């Protein structure tokens, strides 16, 4: 077992609409952080909400995580896949928190429209101290063979954005 990290709790929310791959990208993120040695909690809601409604996944990591959901005003990174959802989640951000908005992504530059969720993790990765190969490993583990390269490519597109998120 790796040594547990002792950092203070940090909070990431991924939000959008059912069907956009929020549960998949939050799974990749949680695995990456967990492998890096953090205590991690990832909270999400299944069922009815997945039928095209608002979906959000909260990922908290640090030394010892208690509540699965991020208390309002304590979100460090907010990833919004559907821009109409921004206002709903804005109160969740802490002052100085980082907003990563899907509108920063040029859809044409992505290998596939459905890979936006992973591209956004690429942008997020610029803010986290995690080796890039750990991200690639987790992405490859999360997808079937034929989608692996495509999603790694989408991740790199996000990672190489000139401005990966706005500090608010």
């Amino acid at each position, binding site marked *: 077992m790796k040594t547990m990290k002792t950092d203070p709790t940090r909070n990431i929310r991924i939000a959008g609409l059912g069907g956009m791959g929020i549960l998949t990208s939050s799974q990749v993120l949680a695995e990456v952080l967990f492998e890096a040695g953090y205590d991690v909690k990832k909270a999400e*809601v299944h*069922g009815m909400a997945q*039928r095209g409604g*608002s979906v959000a996944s909260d990922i908290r990591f640090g030394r010892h995580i208690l509540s*699965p959901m991020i*208390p309002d005003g304590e979100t460090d990174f907010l990833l919004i896949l559907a821009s109409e959802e921004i206002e*709903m989640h804005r109160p969740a951000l802490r002052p100085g928190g980082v907003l990563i908005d899907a509108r920063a992504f040029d859809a044409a530059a992505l290998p596939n429209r459905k890979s936006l969720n992973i591209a956004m993790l690429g942008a997020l990765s610029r803010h986290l101290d995690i080796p890039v190969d750990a991200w690639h490993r987790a992405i490859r583990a999360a997808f079937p063979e034929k989608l692996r390269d495509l999603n790694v490519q989408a991740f790199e597109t996000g990672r190489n954005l000139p401005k990966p998120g706005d500090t608010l």
Partner: protein
Amino acid sequence: MSHRQLLSGNEAVALGALHVGCARGTGYPGTPSTEILERFDELGGEAEWAPNEKVAAEVALGVAFAGVRAMVTMKHVGLNVAADVLFTSAYSGVQGALVFVVADDPGLASSQDEQDTRRYGIAAGVPIIEPADSQEAYDYTRLAFTVSARWKTPVILRLTTRVSHTAAMVQPCDAAETPPRPHFVRDIPGRVMIPGHARIKHRALRSKLAEIQKWNETEGPNRILPGAAAVGIVTCGVASQYAREAAPEATVLKLGMTYPLPFQTILGFLKDKAKRFVIEENDPFLVEQIRAAGGDVPWNPEAFRMGELNVARVKRILTHDASPEPVAPRGKPPCLCPGCPHAYVFEILKKHDCIVAGDIGCYTLAALPPLSAMDSQICMGASIGVGLGLRHVLPEAEARRVVSVIGDSTFLHSGLTGVAEMVWNPPPFGHVLIVLDNQTTAMTGQQENPATGRRLDHTPSPRIRIEEVIAAMGVKNVLTLNPVRQAVELDAALVKALQTNELTAIVARQPCLLAARQIRAAEQPSCVACGTGAGG
């Protein structure tokens, strides 16, 4: 030593059940419980979906009567269906072990009510164990089986949405238990619950509970987390996480077994605390019992028995903040997928201004705008009975517009007895039943059901033909139509059915868009060349 793993509470329950030697897991899909059996199957456990929770619980009880360990999984409202089994199996007890894994949905993320399963513990006399995170979901699953096996009693493992669907660290315990071999031991007075036997078993149940309570006082899964002596919080389940985050300085008594409660421990804990709080989700279950036992704990404001708790709400309780809570933004409501076959049927029902007695599934979303084409939804199978009741008493012009609409999985869960009623006590102007057969249990994530021709693990099984069952039960007109390709015919059939005084059932069959590819693959004939199924 096993590796630490990142598991949801549901996955942790499955792993715990596997490690404790659970011989068979049964259940019916229901958010937030569904993934338990799916994971148990993936891990190599014997798992099955049953037609409904009552049958699932009966099968599990039979397994436990055979001397081995069984679990049955369901959502909170599923236990209403299985309650008959729960109450009397508490009397009979079990030979092996039987754990009811029941997942509550405080805040109604995907349910029709937010009932508190813990009430069933008191009502039926069944111990309740409540994990607070994935590690405890794993540990307490093992504990639930141990308690069940030791006292030969069913045990309820109560989960809630945030325990079931939060992924967190689990360090599994290496000591896998070797399950006993199944063997039938006759015990007629112990398992045939006629009055003469049941009177004796009721006494036996009460003495078992007294013993379990004594055990819970000294060896139960209850912990005191030290802090400042001034503030004492009694808590359980995921609420304990919010309490610890909201009040890191407080002394916390975290209860793992919440029925029968360790009252001496609780009263002893409260004695020297200047400020006392009980933090629990859903009903004031602990508060009521602690107060009844003489503990001086305050009632929390009524608002906090509704919805989920969180750190902010717990802070309000702890600071007696009675100011109005901020209204959480609602977000975009869910809707039927674009092109969903259900939508075609509801467009037709809407066009004819039908009074739709609805049921539980994705199609319940038809009640929301823009369709707004469902008039009632109460519980699994209610569409048929409620539709018949409306038809019996409404004036003719209104009665003729009443249609019962139910999905395939829901029909086989609780619709068959509704059809028996329809045939036995038909309303004067007949009735129309539409079965929306999308060939999967869609809302909970595309599980199999008795009409799909496949079992939980998607291997082939005999298939129940819904239209044949309905016809065999005596409904005169039974049609099967494709709601997408035969929408015109479906419209005409509905109009005709509404005009007659006969009973009509229309099976509207078209695969769910989300499951279509999986269904097609599973239904391809076996590959002759290699002798394997082509499904995948």
